[in-house]
C-alpha cells in the first residue's frame, strides 16, 4: 500500500479522501491556491503545497505544477477527486510517464470513454443498449432532417464537440427541424469551432439511474447497486438516492449486467459509474461512463457499508478485489442533498461570501461531508458546493423524514444556500411518491421563492438580538473571555 498520496482537489471531496487515508495510515498531501490558504482541506492534510494563483488554470487545473508538487514531497500516487483534472486523459498520462500512480483508470480508457461517439460505438459492440441515434456527425441539415424522420420525433440535436448545453436543441416536430439545425450549427461553430451535429432520440421524462462499479487490475468486477439522480437543475444533480424508487430485482439484474459489460469491454479499472436513462416504459439506455469517484458516492457507502475511496486505493495499489458480488448486500435507503452556496430565488446564482454561522446537523444515520467552516470565506473562483448532507434509514419514507429534520437543523448564515429549496423539494408530494424525472425541477419548482411563513418570528428575533446584544457590554465580555450561560441567562425561570 502507498505511504503517501497527494490529493489534487479542494473542498469537501479532498477532506473526504483524506479521512480514509488517515484510517489506512497513509500520509496526505494537500495542494492549494492562494485563495484557499485557510481552506478546510489544507488544514486537514499532513502536508500542503501551494500551487499558485487562484485562477484554476494556475492552480488546480495546472497539471505541471501538481506533478512537480507530488515529486517534491515524494507522493507515490495522486487522487484526483472529481472535477478539475479527474477526467483529463492528458493529466492521467502525465502521471503515468512521471512514474506516479494515478488513482483511476488508465489514460487510454479515460480518452476513449470521454469521446461521445467512440463510447457509443464501444457500448453497441458490447451489447449495451444505447439511445437510438447517429454514430457519425454531419453538417448537412437535409440529411439530419431525413434521419430525424426515420427516428421519429422528438429528437435531440447535439453538437459533436459539444458540452454545457451549447449547440443542443430539443425538436418536437418536422416543421421546427431545419431551423433548429441551422441555429445549433452556428452556435456550435462559434462555441467549439466545429459545427457538426448528430441526433439522438429524445426520451420524454426519463429517470437518471447509474450503477457504481469496482474493477481491479485482475479483471474482477462487481457493482454496488444503483443510484437515482433524477432531481437536477441546470443539468446538474442536486438530490440523489439509493435504491431507486422504481427499481425491481429483474431490472436491477439487467442494468447491473450491462454496467459490468460496459466496464469490462472498455478495459476499465478502479471505481467508476455507468450512467443510464430509464424511459417511462422501463427500457434503459447507456448515457456515459464517469471515470472517477462521483459526488454522490456516499449514498452507496451508507447502504452497502463499503468505503469506495478505500477500494480505489487498494485497486490502484494492485490488490485484488476480495468482494464478491454476492457479498454485497444493500440495506435500507439513503438520500443525499448537495448544499450549494447559491441563491435558489435568483436562478441559483452563486453566493460567495463569509460564513458567519455554521452548525452541522447530527444524530443517527446522518453524515455531512463538508469542506467549509464557520468564519471561512467561500471563494468565488470555484464550484459553489459547500457540503453534502447524507442520511440513511430503514425505508425511503424514514430517510425522507430524516433528511427534512437534518436540513432543518443545518444552520448556515451569511451566504445564501440551497437548503430552504431542498426542504421544499423533499417535502413535495411528487417526491414522496417517487415521481422523480429529470424535468422535475422545471416542472414543479420553476421560479421558486421561499414562502414568508416565519417572517414575523424573524423580525422578532432581530429585535430580541438587539435587546440581548445591548445587555452585553463589549469591554466586559473581552475581560472575562467567553461568557458562561449562567452569566447571560439573567432571570430565566423554568
Amino acid at each position, binding site marked *: 500500500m502507498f505511504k503517501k498520496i497527494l490529493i489534487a482537489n479542494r473542498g469537501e471531496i479532498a477532506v473526504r479522501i483524506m479521512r480514509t487515508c488517515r484510517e489506512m495510515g497513509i500520509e496526505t498531501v494537500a495542494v492549494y491556491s492562494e485563495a484557499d490558504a485557510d481552506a478546510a482541506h489544507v488544514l486537514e492534510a499532513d502536508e500542503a503545497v501551494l500551487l499558485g494563483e487562484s485562477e484554476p488554470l494556475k492552480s488546480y487545473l495546472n497539471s505541471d505544477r501538481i506533478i512537480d508538487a507530488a515529486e517534491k514531497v515524494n507522493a507515490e500516487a495522486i487522487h484526483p477527486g472529481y472535477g478539475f483534472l479527474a477526467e483529463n486523459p492528458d493529466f492521467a498520462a502525465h502521471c503515468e510517464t512521471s512514474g506516479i500512480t494515478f488513482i483511476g483508470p488508465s489514460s487510454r480508457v479515460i480518452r476513449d470513454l470521454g469521446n461521445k461517439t467512440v463510447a457509443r460505438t464501444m457500448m453497441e459492440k458490447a451489447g449495451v443498449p444505447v439511445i437510438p441515434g447517429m454514430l457519425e456527425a454531419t453538417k448537412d441539415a437535409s440529411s439530419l432532417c431525413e434521419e430525424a424522420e426515420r427516428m421519429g420525433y422528438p429528437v435531440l440535436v447535439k453538437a459533436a464537440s459539444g458540452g454545457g448545453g451549447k449547440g443542443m436543441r430539443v425538436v418536437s416536430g418536422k416543421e421546427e427541424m431545419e431551423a433548429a439545425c441551422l441555429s445549433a450549427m452556428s452556435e456550435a461553430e462559434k462555441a467549439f469551432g466545429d459545427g457538426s451535429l448528430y441526433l439522438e432520440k429524445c426520451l420524454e421524462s426519463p429517470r437518471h439511474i447509474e450503477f457504481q462499479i469496482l474493477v481491479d487490475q485482475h479483471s474482477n468486477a462487481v457493482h454496488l447497486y444503483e443510484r437515482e439522480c433524477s432531481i437536477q437543475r441546470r443539468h446538474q444533480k442536486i438530490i440523489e438516492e439509493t435504491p431507486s424508487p422504481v427499481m425491481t430485482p429483474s431490472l436491477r439484474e439487467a442494468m447491473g449486467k450491462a454496467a459490468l459489460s460496459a466496464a469490462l469491454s472498455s478495459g476499465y479499472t478502479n471505481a467508476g459509474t455507468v450512467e443510464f436513462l430509464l424511459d417511462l416504459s422501463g427500457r434503459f439506455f447507456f448515457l456515459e461512463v464517469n471515470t472517477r469517484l462521483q459526488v454522490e458516492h456516499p449514498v452507496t457507502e451508507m447502504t452497502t457499508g463499503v468505503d469506495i475511496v478505500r477500494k480505489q486505493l487498494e485497486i490502484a495499489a494492485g490488490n485484488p478485489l476480495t468482494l464478491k458480488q454476492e457479498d454485497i448486500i444493500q440495506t435500507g435507503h439513503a438520500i443525499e442533498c448537495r448544499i450549494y452556496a447559491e441563491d435558489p430565488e435568483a436562478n441559483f446564482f452563486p453566493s460567495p461570501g463569509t460564513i458567519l454561522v455554521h452548525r452541522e446537523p447530527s444524530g443517527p444515520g446522518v453524515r455531512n461531508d463538508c469542506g467549509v467552516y464557520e468564519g471561512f470565506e467561500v471563494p*468565488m473562483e*470555484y464550484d459553489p458546493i459547500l457540503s453534502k448532507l447524507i442520511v440513511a434509514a430503514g425505508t425511503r419514507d424514514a430517510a425522507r423524514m430524516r433528511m427534512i429534520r437534518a436540513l432543518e437543523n443545518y444552520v448556515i*448564515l451569511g451566504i445564501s444556500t440551497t437548503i430552504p429549496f431542498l426542504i421544499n423539494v423533499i417535502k413535495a408530494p411528487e417526491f414522496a411518491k417517487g415521481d422523480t424525472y429529470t424535468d422535475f425541477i422545471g416542472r414543479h419548482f420553476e421560479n421558486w421563492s421561499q414562502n*414568508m411563513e416565519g417572517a*414575523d418570528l424573524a423580525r*422578532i428575533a432581530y429585535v430580541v438580538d438587539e*435587546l*440581548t446584544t445591548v445587555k452585553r457590554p463589549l469591554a466586559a465580555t473581552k475581560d472575562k473571555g467567553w461568557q458562561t450561560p449562567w452569566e447571560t441567562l*439573567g432571570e*430565566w425561570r423554568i
Partner: protein
Amino acid sequence: MKYRLKISEETAELDVSGSAGRQNAEFTIGEKTYSVRYRAIPDHCLHMVVDGKRVSVFVADGGQGKYVFLNGKSFLVRDADRLPLRRARRGGPDQTPGDVTPPMPSVVVRIMVEEGDLVKKGQGLIVVTAMKMETTLVAPSDGRVKKINTSIEAKVAPGDILVEVEEEEQENE
C-alpha cells in the same frame, strides 16, 4: 420602541414593549401581538417561547442587516431606517430604476456598452462571473448609458452601481 423591519422587499412595523431586563416582551406586528420570553444562548442562538411555543433561532449580524435562521429557512432582516442613504435616493427604497448592480459578489468579465450608448430595456450591458457561472446584467429600461463605474476584472458586490442608465427625455417621470 418602534422598528421598521424589511425582509426582501416587504417592510413591516414592529412595536416592542416590556422590560428587556426581564427577558420577556410583547411584540406587535400589524394586527398581531406576540408574547415572547427569550434568552440568548451564546453564540448566535436565541431561545424564544412565543405564545407558549418554543423555538430556537440563530442570528448573525451581516454588514447590511441580520441573518436569521429558523427551521431551515434563512431571512435577511434589515432595519429600514438604517439602510444606507445611497440606496434610499429618489425612485425607490433600494436603488434607482436606472442603476445596474450585481446580484452577488462577482468579477466583471465583459462590458458590452460605452458611455453615451443608447440601450433598449433588457439589452445586455455587463457580464459578471462567480463560481464558474456567468450572468448578464441587463438594462432596466430604454435609455442612454450615463456612466460606467467599473472595469474588466474588477471585484464587485451587490449595491455597487456598475452602470447608470438614464431614461430618455421624451417621457417625464
